[in-house]
């Protein structure tokens, strides 16, 4: 469960996130949309504990990320828009490293890594140095390493970038299964189709504020628009 309360984040004079409050329940698939510089990545970075909020708070599974960061992160899987990987390691070594950082048992670690690697078709790359892998393959390595410790909350920033249609499908299915199994999924994306297809609820951010939150149907009803695209454009149009 993710609880965001009156979250505000300033960069100097710029208000990147402006009094955002949101609760994403256990087992909910939440997709956050918004134009560039809407504040999505900043919100996610505060959720991941990479920066302090100017005011407000974020709780992951009841743990305040500012007060109990270790407990919160232990329950979370976070993949940024440009994930860091140790380029001289192989994916198998990297999975082992992150698994151990999460305190996983040897057997569970191996089983989960093998299962997810198989699912994301990483088998042939497991023993190759990460530096030689393609962008999409690196993205899959980052996703597997994030998911293997069985998180209760998944926070992914633009996870589809670099993935081919096949692996985008695999990721979407995996995340849906995670949500169905009770994991809270929070994904930021620019692909409206992902939100339409996958999300239980959609949030649209604009200029640091949550302009709208609700299921696809609720957003349609509230905005009297048929498609998510037209809703998105009308809510994020600066000219009006």
């Amino acid at each position: 469960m993710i609880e965001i309360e009156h979250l505000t984040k300033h960069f100097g004079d710029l208000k990147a996130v402006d009094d955002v409050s949101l609760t994403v329940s256990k087992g909910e698939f939440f997709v956050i949309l918004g134009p560039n510089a809407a504040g999505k990545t900043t919100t996610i970075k505060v959720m991941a504990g990479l920066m302090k909020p100017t005011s407000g708070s974020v709780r992951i599974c009841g743990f305040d990320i500012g007060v109990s960061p270790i407990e919160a992160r232990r329950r979370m899987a976070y993949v940024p828009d440009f994930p860091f990987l140790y380029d001289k390691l192989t994916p198998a070594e990297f999975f082992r490293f992150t698994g151990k950082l999460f305190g996983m048992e040897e057997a569970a670690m191996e089983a989960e890594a093998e299962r997810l690697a198989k699912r994301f078709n990483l088998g042939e790359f497991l023993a190759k140095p990460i530096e030689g892998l393609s962008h999409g393959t690196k993205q899959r390595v980052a996703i597997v390493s994030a998911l293997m410790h069985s998180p209760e909350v998944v926070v992914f920033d633009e996870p589809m970038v670099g993935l081919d249609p096949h692996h985008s499908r695999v990721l979407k299915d995996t995340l849906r299964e995670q949500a169905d199994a009770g994991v809270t999924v929070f994904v930021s994306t620019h692909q409206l189709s992902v939100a339409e297809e996958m999300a239980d609820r959609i949030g649209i951010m604009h200029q640091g504020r949550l302009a709208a939150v609700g299921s696809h149907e609720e957003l349609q009803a509230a905005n009297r628009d048929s498609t998510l695209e037209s809703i998105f454009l009308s809510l994020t149009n600066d000219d009006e």
Partner: protein
Amino acid sequence: MNDAKPIPHWRLLVGVNRTQSWRRLKSAVAQSRLHAFLMGLFVVGYAWLAYALFHKALQFTSSFPGLGPVLIERMMFLLFAFLFLLLLLSNVIINFTNLFRNKETQFLLSLPVPRQVVYRWKIFESGILASWAFLFLIAPLVAAYGATYNAPWHFYLVTPLFVALFVVLPAILGSWAALGLARWVDRRAFQVAAVLAVIVLIVAASSWLQPETVTDEMLETRVLDVVDRLLARTRFSLFPFLPSYWVSSGITQWVEGALMGTFFFGLVLLSHTLFFGYLALTRTGGFFYGALSAVNSRGGGTAAGWKFWKRKPALDQAAFAPRPLDRLARLLWWGRGDTRALIVKDIRTFWRDATQWGQSLILFGLLIAYIVNLRHFSHRLTSDFWIDLTSYLNLGACALNLATLTTRFVFPQISLEGKRIWIIGMAPLGMRRTLMAKFLFSTAVSMGVTMALVGASCAMLSIPPGRILYFTLTVGVMAFTLNALAVGLGAVYPNFREDNPSKIVSGFGGTLCLVLSFLYIIGMLSLMAATSRWAFGGSSVAVFWLGWVVFLGGSFLLGWLPLRAGIRKMASVEI
């Protein structure tokens, strides 16, 4: 997940980074065995040559009865005092980039790794990066010191222990300074503060280094008193609260056989290292996170306390209007527009990265303070020998300073393009012209600055105009070679994965560039002094011109060959 079992974060981080480093080394060796062999040869060659030279010099100095040991002891104190200062500066800069601009730091902080562990790991990594080269450079001198005094075998075991304890202190203090800078000072504030600090440094050094009045009578009758007075300006290195004092006292007393004294200073050093180490390793993680958050939250804005010089951002069309730098570049750079744009981009990038130019300011500040003080020194020089010696050493000092700057700032230029290299690579500009533009620009700037500095220092020494021309031309040629060497080797050994210039310079290419630059300067300086028309006995006209021909030919070759190799490498680089 196992909540009960403690996670060995530190061991995991050491393990994964050890694997990374080992594989990097293996792939570097596998890429070119010849380069690896040359690197090994340089390491051994430097250690041997430096040891031989230092040993000879120390033996010569110690041969002066009474005076020798005093001078050598003071030299050891000065060595460690300046080492402390340099390590401190180096640690501030490397910690800043490693703690706040490093992707691994961000990655680790998003995992359930305590902030304290991340901070601990990063200061450990920065400490090693900041210290290894300095330690490698001074090791032959310390060994030569031991050999000069026939130190027992255990001297060579105890000294590394002392030095190992010693380097921890600047590593910790440097990281704290970096945290403070990151937390409270933004880029613009730092730029202003650094310029002011350098001005204060120059003024303070100029007024502090006043000449001592020594009469001929004093020179004949009270030599030790005179030496003591001349050494008065180095007394700061004897300040007992300096960590460098503890380490130098420990080492010198061990050589003298005063083992209890060494034991005492060893304990002083150990207690401070443990105290500050404990604070850094267990109590600074929270502050680190606050500083990191402050850096990430700055977003180009100005911190609250520094708003009085904030520039209003340009809006809409005004943002595209040429800025003063663009106009200046159009006036000064007559080449094509694309190369001018590249130069303007390089200047802006350099200026906006405070850690880059902060270091060059320090180097130039020290050099200016030195040159300003030469005017006092010249009054004391009555013999031609000393004037000649000083003028050549002066040329050497300026050239070595230039070599430091070219290695530190020019060498990483191509690597720093990093993942953005495709922008230049795909542009009609081409890699050849990119390289030549970088070379010509850095040469023009460094040539102007060093020729002016050498000219000024010669004038301070009251050298005749003809010789001033000789020295300024010599350093001008050296500027050409050193820049060509740095640009060329920077292109031959690029590191597009690294954003941190300090780490780029620490690699094989950077080390090779520094060693070749130093060897070139020492070789050419010796050649020019030996073939001088007037100095050290004077040579014939033929020998003088032969010296110039060899100097020009050698300089051209040492500059052109790496530059050509760099151009070829860049022409075939796979982006």
